């Protein structure tokens, strides 16, 4: 049984139903130049917030047997400036500052005295390509213990010989697969891959895995996020 109405009333009903859709027009805010930037920033911020919630300290990134390794000469070299910032290996130290009990300059030998770990993990670039590499080094968590990082500190920031800079949340820094890496494919790091020391963080996107480290800072607040983050990329970008 259908009810009956006249065409005038039907127009009113239809108009009312159409007006209910006005929330869709709110999406138009993204087309307004003044609003677009803050809206997208909020969206990216929400994604980062969700990413941090999705991160699980005990969950390991997949590891691979040697047969899955990308040949070393096909492992891309990405930089934002120069492939080789001409680090003087004889004078090189890692300068540790911030919320630590033992700040100061650490030599490569001091770092290498910590237990060594080697892992075949996937390196994912924000551009979309991925490679599987063999990375060797010491756990960042072991190093943070050695320098006496404050137990409630929240961030680890690094600076690099090529003026690149990056930061990690403490949960990621403490992850068992997060390495201060000095070896790739069983050989000491080559200059273009970040000699003498780089980050290898298989739970993070590539641009977070800084090369040619010179400074490491432990802090409660984040002063510098990262070079690419400052250009507009995701701050957390956990994989």
């Amino acid at each position, binding site marked *: 049984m259908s009810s009956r109405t006249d065409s005038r009333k039907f127009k009113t009903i239809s108009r009312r139903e159409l007006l209910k859709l006005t929330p869709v027009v709110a999406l138009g805010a993204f087309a307004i130049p003044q609003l677009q930037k803050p809206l997208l920033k909020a969206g990216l911020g929400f994604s980062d917030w969700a990413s941090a919630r999705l991160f699980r300290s005990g969950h390991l990134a997949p590891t691979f047997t040697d047969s899955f390794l990308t040949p070393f000469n*096909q492992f891309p070299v990405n930089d934002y400036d120069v492939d080789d910032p001409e680090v003087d290996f004889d004078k090189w130290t890692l300068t540790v500052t911030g919320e630590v009990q033992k700040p100061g300059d650490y030599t490569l030998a001091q770092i290498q005295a910590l237990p060594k770990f080697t892992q075949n993990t996937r390196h994912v670039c924000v551009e979309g390509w991925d490679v599987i590499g063999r990375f060797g080094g010491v756990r960042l968590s072991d190093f943070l213990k050695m320098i006496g990082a404050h137990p409630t500190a929240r961030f680890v920031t690094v600076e690099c010989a090529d003026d690149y800079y990056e930061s990690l949340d403490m949960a990621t820094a403490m992850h068992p697969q997060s390495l201060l890496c000095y070896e790739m494919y069983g050989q000491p790091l080559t200059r273009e891959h970040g000699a003498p020391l780089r980050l290898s963080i298989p739970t993070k996107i590539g641009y977070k895995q800084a090369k040619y480290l010179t400074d490491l800072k432990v802090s409660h607040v984040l002063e510098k996020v990262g070079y690419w983050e400052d250009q507009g990329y995701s701050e957390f970008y956990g994989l």
Partner: protein
Amino acid sequence: MASRAIEIEDVKTGEVTEAVYEHPFVVRLCHWVNAVSLFVMVGSGFQIFRAFPSFGAKIPQKDLLNWPKAFALGGWLGGALQWHLTFMWIYIATGLLYIGCQIFSGNYKQVLFVRRDLSGVWPMVHHYFFFGPKPPARETYNPLQKHAYTSAIGLGVLSALTGLAVWKPVQFSWLAWLMGGFHLARLWHFLIMWAMLAFVFGHLVMVVLHGWNNFVSMLTGWKQDPDYRSE
């Protein structure tokens, strides 16, 4: 499923026509929000793809296609990622709201392609593509339409799942593994987008062919003179 129907008497001519309430409010809302977010996801997706337009190795890199910047959104990789990582939440939220409401209200029966629709697909294909006779319309959607809509919803779910595997190949490593690894998940994500675009193309052609009343029904919910009522 019986839809709400109404008889309309024209105030000037006294002529009586019929209208059926085909699309509940939530369906219409999700449809239009989803249309906008799909547009943004595809546009920004193409800009992201431009950063590495390949599914092979990085070295040596063999580009699949050089997608023109004019048909991409975001300006550069970082900008496109901002769009993509913002609208994916809107895309997923409307998807979940739509699927949830359809199941809860029982309205899904209008759309869901089921086994008994199978026999009706060929007559519709025959009618549309080979000038066959038009099969009588019995429901809001004919079997071919149901097939298309059900597929599109399935593609929507798959686009979100493959996207999740590409965005979080470590936290959702099992999902990436199911898709054959990160590398293939990215390829599936790309192919599913093309399948979705094929649906959108067909959908738009049909919208044009089926005229104004049909288009208006997705705005007001009411379709005047539906063909299946007069049969």
